[in-house]
């Protein structure tokens, strides 16, 4: 059943974004919330903002019960490598609680006091200091915090595909030139294996936080969670891919591409016409055989993927961080920026040097939406405001999503999920 729009998670103030907006799309007349579990009733219910913090603490302890920590000696130095994304799931408090419980558990079971939480930023060098202050982490964690960013000093790591680099401060969390296999190669290296003890992750579905998993074997952990992740996120991804027309609104901290609606990021809508989980989708690889065909004009590269979803008829930016290349949006879609302060940040953004050449400014969210409606010719609105559990949408979009969800859910269960699992060798995996 449709309900008045649920207020989305609060926005952390940041030098990288405009001051948090008082008026958010959820405040606008006519906006409603459609619940993820209303769309997909079979999906497990998750905790949302303000719920389940204690439950995360006990789930962490429970998940760690079978983890072997004997590798950690009292005199050791332990780095707990934190994910920058964790603090932006809902309001970040579930992730903070998991990390705290994790540090406490390591101390209780090993006697090791030299525990450090290492916070890595994705782009902005001061992001992590802001997170530490906002979440009061120095006080909350009892242990030390340390920060690192992608341009920190590197350490060479020998892997099976050659020398790669990790961040020196954290000994291989992620490097600044990475792709999926690079992380695997680094993880498998003797350099990391000598230090790695276990992994602990906060579990989520598009409906919210569902628990905690931990394991000494990262691959076993991966196999254990992949099926659920592919099934639950796959349904929401495919549903968003079915949207035929919309105005998309960015309304949270962080970069527009990564802002959530119904637990998935705007990027999933932007590339929503293609099945991101399908490993058989053509990809461009610079191998000699394909290069030769390319130069002979026998094949065409990359004309089918990573194009902006034509269903997006307009984009309104109420608040978002610049700092991630996304100028394709205003180049191809009418884009309205709310407020001079947001426009000034975009003007200064070296990752989107011509963004504001292609966007217009509106003084208020209301006028921006009115303008976007006229240009887009649709009243279907979907808001990326950091929400899990709900989509903040216009009534017409809610009706459309409700109408399509049943069919999409069946398609995923019967067609897509078996394909995705088979491609990953997980179709016969019961872990």
């Amino acid at each position, binding site marked *: 059943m449709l309900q008045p729009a649920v207020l989305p998670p609060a926005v952390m103030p940041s030098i990288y974004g405009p001051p948090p907006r008082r008026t958010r799309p959820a405040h606008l007349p006519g906006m409603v919330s459609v619940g993820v579990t209303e769309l997909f009733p079979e999906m497990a219910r998750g905790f949302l903002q303000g719920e389940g913090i204690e439950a995360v603490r006990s789930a962490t302890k429970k998940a760690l019960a079978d983890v072997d920590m004997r590798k950690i000696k009292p005199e050791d130095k332990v780095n707990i490598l934190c994910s920058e994304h964790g603090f932006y799931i809902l309001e970040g408090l579930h992730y903070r609680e998991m990390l705290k419980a994790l540090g406490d558990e390591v101390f209780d079971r090993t006697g090791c006091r030299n525990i450090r939480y290492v916070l890595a930023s994705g782009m902005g060098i001061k992001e992590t200091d802001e997170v530490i202050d906002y979440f009061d982490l120095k006080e909350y964690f009892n242990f030390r915090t340390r920060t690192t960013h992608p341009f920190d000093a590197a350490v060479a790591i020998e892997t099976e595909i*050659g020398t790669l680099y990790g961040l020196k401060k954290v000994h291989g969390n992620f490097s600044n030139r990475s792709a999926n296999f690079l992380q695997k190669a680094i993880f498998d290296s003797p350099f990391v294996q000598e230090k790695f003890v276990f992994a602990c992750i906060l579990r989520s579905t598009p409906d919210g936080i569902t628990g905690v998993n931990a394991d000494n074997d990262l691959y076993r952990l991966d196999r254990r969670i992949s099926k659920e992740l592919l099934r639950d996120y796959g349904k929401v991804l495919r549903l968003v891919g079915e949207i035929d027309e919309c105005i998309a609104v960015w309304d949270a901290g962080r970069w527009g591409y990564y802002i959530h609606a119904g637990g998935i990021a705007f990027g999933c809508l932007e590339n929503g016409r293609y099945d991101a989980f399908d490993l058989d989708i*053509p990809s*461009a*690889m*610079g191998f000699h055989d394909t290069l030769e065909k390319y130069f002979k004009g026998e094949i065409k590269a*990359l004309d089918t993927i990573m194009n902006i979803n034509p269903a997006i008829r307009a984009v309104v930016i109420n608040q978002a961080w610049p700092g991630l*290349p996304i100028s394709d949006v205003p180049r191809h879609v009418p884009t309205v920026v709310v407020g001079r302060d947001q426009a000034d940040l975009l003007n200064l953004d070296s990752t989107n*040097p011509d963004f504001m050449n292609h966007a217009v400014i509106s003084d208020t969210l209301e006028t921006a939406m009115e303008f976007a409606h006229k240009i887009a010719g649709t009243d279907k609105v979907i808001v990326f405001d950091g929400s899990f559990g709900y989509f903040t949408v216009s009534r017409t979009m809610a009706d459309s999503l409700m109408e399509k969800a049943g069919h999409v859910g069946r398609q995923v269960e019967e067609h897509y999920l078996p394909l995705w699992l088979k491609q990953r060798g997980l179709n016969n995996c019961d872990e």
Partner: protein
Amino acid sequence: MKVVHFVSVVDPRKCNGDRLCEGLCPAGAIKVVEKKARVDATRCVACGKCADVCREEAVTLIRRDDPMAIGFNVAAVDPAKVQELCMKASLLPDLLVCACTGTLAGEVAAAVISGARSPEDIVARTGAGSGCGIYCMGVVFKLFQAAGIRIPEDPRWNNLPLTAADVPEVVSEKYPAYYFRGRI
């Protein structure tokens, strides 16, 4: 083509000469002289890393009186040579190297052919590396390597020329789920 509308300026009263900005500048536009950072405005690409890393808030970006265009006339370079160098580096010429500025591998190859001899040259001639600086430089180093140009070690980019094409066949066969031998 990138038009640079801003330039970094340093407040010498706040600058403590810690060289953090100098160590991050992809354009080589900042030098610390007598414990004060100085910006060469003719090289500054306004990436903002200097301002971001500065703990003293000594660096700000101000609007240029005359915007500076970063560009490169690829048409002036023999396309056959561009193709040859890209082939040697196992790169598609229209591979997007820098998502921030839209620079393609072929443009970087053309810049190398026409005399670029350092990453800073690539930044100045093509714009690649003047934005986030995270995804582009591996391909730049790949093209330098293919051209037989050795770049001195530099912590800003680690000089890593590795791309998916370098993954040994034995490794790609070992991990089929990673689709190293992808199809177009």
